[in-house]
């Protein structure tokens, strides 16, 4: 959580300094939810994070370097300068790189899980995340229904932060709670306070565990606010102050730190030390990547198909 927060703060500041092209999307405030999923997944599982899942990614094993390289467009990153920001992953390590179209990763996770089942793999879990807004897509519906029909070990985590970009839930759906959707797919559903790390670990962990042990698809609704704009270009002025001041508006990181202190598991000094370490780690990754070369378009391999002999050579007759 802390690493995620610090890394994203750094990325946001790079963005403000004009060092990042395109958008920066962070998960500030949603780290407890995200990390609770990522940490319960293990090698051999598959994870298709959303744009707010830095914490979950890191917990699942994505390196800080992968994140920074992708944001800064380094050719050494997993996306080799071709795709950026949140659109990164390593499919062969179970981390699927999202396409932007909301909801469309669910069925891909299903396909991975199906293949694993075919190959005899056991106790594999596939997890993917969306926001409240993402539940309105046709792809969400088709994907979750497909998982239910195939009885796949899918954990569908919805971070309900009450807004999709600027659009509030009342313009997005009309059910009382997103949890009400579970029964319509015939999957198990649970809801959790996303500001409470203990609750998140328990509830999301339970869902992962049930999926792993054959319980079929799990829908988890985590209620939380994003304590940031949709992207770093957005000041999120549309968020209702009442919500901000409600318990859901708490910063899960602060809540966690306070809890650690209160329970006496750490003291202030230790916390400060952790933070310093993490800052150091992030700064050094950024410094490394900033020294890396930019991609060279003239040396770049412009092929869109892997069957080289089927590459269209006549595609651009004049270039």
């Amino acid at each position, binding site marked *: 959580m802390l690493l995620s927060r610090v890394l994203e703060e750094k990325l946001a500041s790079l963005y403000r300094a004009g060092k990042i*092209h*395109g958008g920066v999307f962070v998960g500030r405030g949603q780290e407890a939810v995200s990390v609770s999923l990522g940490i319960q997944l293990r090698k051999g599982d598959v994870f298709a994070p959303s744009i707010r899942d830095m914490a979950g990614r890191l917990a699942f094993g994505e390196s800080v370097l992968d994140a920074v390289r992708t944001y800064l467009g380094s050719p050494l990153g997993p996306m080799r300068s071709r795709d950026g920001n949140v*659109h990164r992953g390593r499919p062969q390590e179970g981390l699927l790189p999202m396409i932007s179209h909301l909801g469309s990763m669910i069925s891909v996770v299903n396909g991975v899980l199906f293949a694993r089942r075919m190959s005899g793999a056991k106790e594999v879990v596939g997890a993917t995340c969306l926001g409240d807004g993402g539940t309105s897509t*046709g792809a969400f519906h088709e994907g979750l229904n497909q998982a239910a029909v195939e009885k796949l070990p899918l954990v569908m985590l919805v971070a309900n932060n009450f807004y999709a970009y600027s*659009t509030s839930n009342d313009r997005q759906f009309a059910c009382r709670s997103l949890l009400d959707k579970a029964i319509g797919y015939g999957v198990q559903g649970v809801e959790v306070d996303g500001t409470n790390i203990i609750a998140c670990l328990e509830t999301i962990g339970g869902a992962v565990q049930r999926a792993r042990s054959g319980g079929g698809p799990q829908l988890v609704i985590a209620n939380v606010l994003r304590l940031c704009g949709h992207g770093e270009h957005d000041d999120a002025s549309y968020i209702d102050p009442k919500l901000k001041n409600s318990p859901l508006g708490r910063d899960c990181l602060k809540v966690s730190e306070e809890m650690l202190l209160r329970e006496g598991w750490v003291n202030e000094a230790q916390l400060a030390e952790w933070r310093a370490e993490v800052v150091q780690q992030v700064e050094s990754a950024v410094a490394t990547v900033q020294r890396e070369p930019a991609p060279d378009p003239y040396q770049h391999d*412009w092929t869109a198909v892997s069957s080289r002999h089927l590459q*269209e050579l006549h595609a*651009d007759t*004049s270039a």
Partner: protein
Amino acid sequence: MSITYLEAIREAQAKALRDDPRVFIYGEDVGKFGGAFKATKNLQEQFPGRVIDAPISEDAITGFAVGSAIEGMRPIIEMQFADFSTVAFNQIVNQAATLYWRTNVSCPLVVRLPCGGTSGSGPFHSQSLETIYSHYPGLVVMTPATVEDAYSMLLEAVAIDDPVVFCEHKLLYYHLKAEKLPTEALPVGKARLVREGRDMTVVTYSAMVHESLAAAEELASDGWEIEVVDLRSVKPLDTDTVMASVARTGRLLCVGEAWPWGGVTAEVIARVSAEGWGLLDAPPQRLNAKDTPIPYHPNLWAAHRPTARSVADAARRLLRM
């Protein structure tokens, strides 16, 4: 006072809302927020109940527009990025585009698509999709390149009785400026000669008009006179204006930002070759983006799409043929 391409789009929508009670706007975040690019800023306030936030449901947004159009409304729907229209594809090409032909009831709606590449936007926020919509019968596909056209063509898009796919170029949103909004305009379906010349014709549209003009300027310093035609709408495609220009210059280069296979440049060359064969003094040439997804890194992106530099290079090669 000056006005940007984006402001022109907003002004056109304001005017349409003001002048015609049948007009309404529907799309994600278009309401109080004013849209991801602020193309509908303040419109909900000015036109209460007529600028409506939609759920993230591009398919249903489009179907909704079709239904209201059947009833005589004039919906303008905004896709947050053109790229997301791929999940509304069926409703656009099979529902909206076929309605008139099947039923004799027209389907006056406008789908606004923020198109085209900008630095750092990557494979899913940069696409130019005029080809796939033009291929289907029943749609009008507009690709304005200027502030004035963004304004007047959007008004015309709302006015005409057919479904219009309105391809706005995001790169032009903030940078392109005009002194004032036009009061008259070329009709949709007519291309515009934006620069006269006698040595070669460059046929292009949308943001590539500006790259082509810059290339023409560069070549002018070498003494070449390059004529530039802005197609304005790619369907219908104004073959006459293109042909008249080629008749003057004898050379044709087509430039588009979309992918190379099929598409506007192939269509223009196929028409000129078939119908204007005798006019050509050299083989018609074209320049498109590369046949890969649109890359994220600015260096790669700049090499992926045609630029003034690569247009000038292609033009020089053609002038030597």
